[in-house]
């Protein structure tokens, strides 16, 4: 089984600990994981802001960088959703416009091989107990793309519930958007902050010292607000929790 890590541009640049955690975790589960260095970004920021044509070279790059791997695993729900939901759409649009006909085939080719991390663990590897140890109360924020585009369902919670020492604290209004939305946060700062404030308030009221999610972009926004409020709650990517063990406890700074 040839497995490639799609670390995503945000994790690569700002959250390398998350990428390292995925590598640690998958190795522990006996999966040898590769990092094709030709990868960069799935093109989601371009696509979602209306620059569809600018996302096309990045889609081509993605398909080429990950050619030959059985599975492509990413610790980002929104990037997995970009590939699964929007690549086929981009392919269809390009074909309808009478150009880039091969984009549609590229999309068909990468979609079934692309997995968000928790899907890969639960659906492909068939595990929910990954042998992790994380002795803290944790609240889980299900991100919009994980929830509504990927339909991750309770996969993340099932994984978390098997982590030794971890107490999963329910979050009020969990299914509501945190207000990040990529360039939305910059184009509509007032509404984005208002949504983020409400989300941060719900998180603080859980009393849990840690909030986790399957997407660092959302955590960056939520963490940025919690930080500005001086709250002690720490955003941690789910992969870093699952990678922690008694021998190698969680230590990544955020």
């Amino acid at each position, binding site marked *: 089984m040839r497995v490639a890590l799609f670390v995503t541009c945000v994790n690569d640049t700002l959250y390398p600990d998350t990428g390292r955690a995925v590598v640690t975790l998958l190795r522990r589960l006996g999966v040898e994981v590769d990092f094709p260095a030709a990868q960069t970004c799935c093109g989601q920021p371009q696509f979602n802001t*209306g620059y569809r*044509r600018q996302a096309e070279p990045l889609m081509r790059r993605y398909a080429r960088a990950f050619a030959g791997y059985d599975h492509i695993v990413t610790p980002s729900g929104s990037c997995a959703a970009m590939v699964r939901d929007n690549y086929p759409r981009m392919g269809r649009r390009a074909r309808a416009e009478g150009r880039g006909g091969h984009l549609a085939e590229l999309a068909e080719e990468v979609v079934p091989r692309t997995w968000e991390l928790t899907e890969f663990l639960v659906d492909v590897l068939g595990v929910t107990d990954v042998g992790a140890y994380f002795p803290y109360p944790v609240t889980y924020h299900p991100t919009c793309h994980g929830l509504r585009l990927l339909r991750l369902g309770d996969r993340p919670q099932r994984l978390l519930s098997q982590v030794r020492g971890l107490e999963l604290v329910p979050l009020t209004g969990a299914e509501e958007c945190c207000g990040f939305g990529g360039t939305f946060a910059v184009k509509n700062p007032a509404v984005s902050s208002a949504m983020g404030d409400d989300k941060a308030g719900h998180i603080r009221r859980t009393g849990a010292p840690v909030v986790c999610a399957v997407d660092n972009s959302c955590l960056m926004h939520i963490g940025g607000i919690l930080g500005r409020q001086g709250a002690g709650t720490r955003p941690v990517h789910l992969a870093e929790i699952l990678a922690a063990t008694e021998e190698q406890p969680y230590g990544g700074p955020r």
Partner: protein
Amino acid sequence: MSGRTHLGMPSFPDASRTSTRNTTLRANLGHATRTIRGKRDRAVAELADWDRLRAAGAAVKDRTLRHLDHYLEQLEERVTAAGGRVHWAPDAAAARRIVTDLVRATGEREVLKVKSMATQEIGLNTALRQAGIAAYETDLAELIVQLGDDLPSHILVPAIHRNRAEIREIFTTRMGDWGRPAPEGLGDDPAELAEAARRHLREKFLRARVAVSGANFMVAETGTLVVVESEGNGRMCLTLPETLISVVGIEKVVPTWQDLEIYLQLLPRSSTAERMNPYTSTWTGTTDGDGPREFHLVLLDNGRTDTLADTVGRQVLRCIRCSACLNVCPVYERAGGHAYGSPYPGPIGAVLTPQLRGTGTALDASLPFASSLCGACYDVCPVAIDIPEVLVHLRERVVEGGPATVRGTRTTIRPAAGHAAERAAMRAATWLLDHPGALRSGQRLAARTRRLHPRRLPGPGAAWTATRDLPRVPAESFRDWWRRNRPEEGTDR
């Protein structure tokens, strides 16, 4: 008298900067939408075949839209055969003119109104007032908006942004100017407020000889119009006056009564979380001794056939105006309906308004961006309109321009003003991301200078750092860490 319009309103980000700070508005909206959300979920969960019903609702609308010309002609023929008259209005100005002339011809100076999105869309009340005709809204929430010299902020509950105390205040101070005043010592109990409105409206129902309505559906096979409502005031307007004028968007046609059955299940559960609408009224032409003597149907295009010509955007014409997407929208809940500057607020407004009005103004060009693309609207939509897909499609039209149909002619739209810098930045980002070596150099530079990074940014980034801390750039990117640990693997291509 209510004369406000949406003309000249600020862009969505500007309007929402003010509205998000209005704590009363946020509280009123948050409370109302949370309540209805929970109820809708329960009402929908009762039906085991909801997904199939939803798919059928989408399919029937799509099929009808594909053959819209045929069904509209059939409708016109049946309405005419039943004693009604059909008028075609290509745009808002034509529709206003047709209705005004029809009212003038009756010699009346007052009309009753059944809550109608189409007449809001064309700005009918203002046009009638300019022609010396008073239009009285009869829907309770619409009455509150009219008396308060306000604009509607929700499709179904136009006064959702008002609480009981505010409504009591509006009734006490304004009812007298419009007709029967509010009773002395009016309290803010809902039943008391409803009773005051009932008495105020009753005298109008008994007096009026002309009514103007919209319709939720038009059944082509019999030429029948359908209105569903909760209060029964609409039914009064549809039956008591001598002349009835219905202004309806052309997309509201359904082929048969059997098709209607789908929507009469989808609509109430999605909008008011009820199994069935309290009042469902249907009217077909005229009948001697029963209901209006004269019936006019004004079929409104106003950008709808242009929308139909757009392969991605046309799905928006499936909308049955249930307002479920508003009630689940986190952006609508914080910004409020007025920020959308249109009778159609919320997610549906963000995709419908720029298609009906174009993206020429700063406000209309900002609407497709008024969403975090969280997808909640798509999930609840009873006719499965992929609102996020259309939002992104319209964003492309704003930032890059492209082909579109305007007044029946295929044209190439130019990008909206003010996106040149963003476009350049996106192109640069794509170039960088298509060159991993350059990306790596950029990452290294950022890592080396990490101690110098400011905590607050100038320019567009200021919007981020006004309320949020920036993440710290790590000492080493993942890419570099990987390479340091596995020098033998991986090459940039």
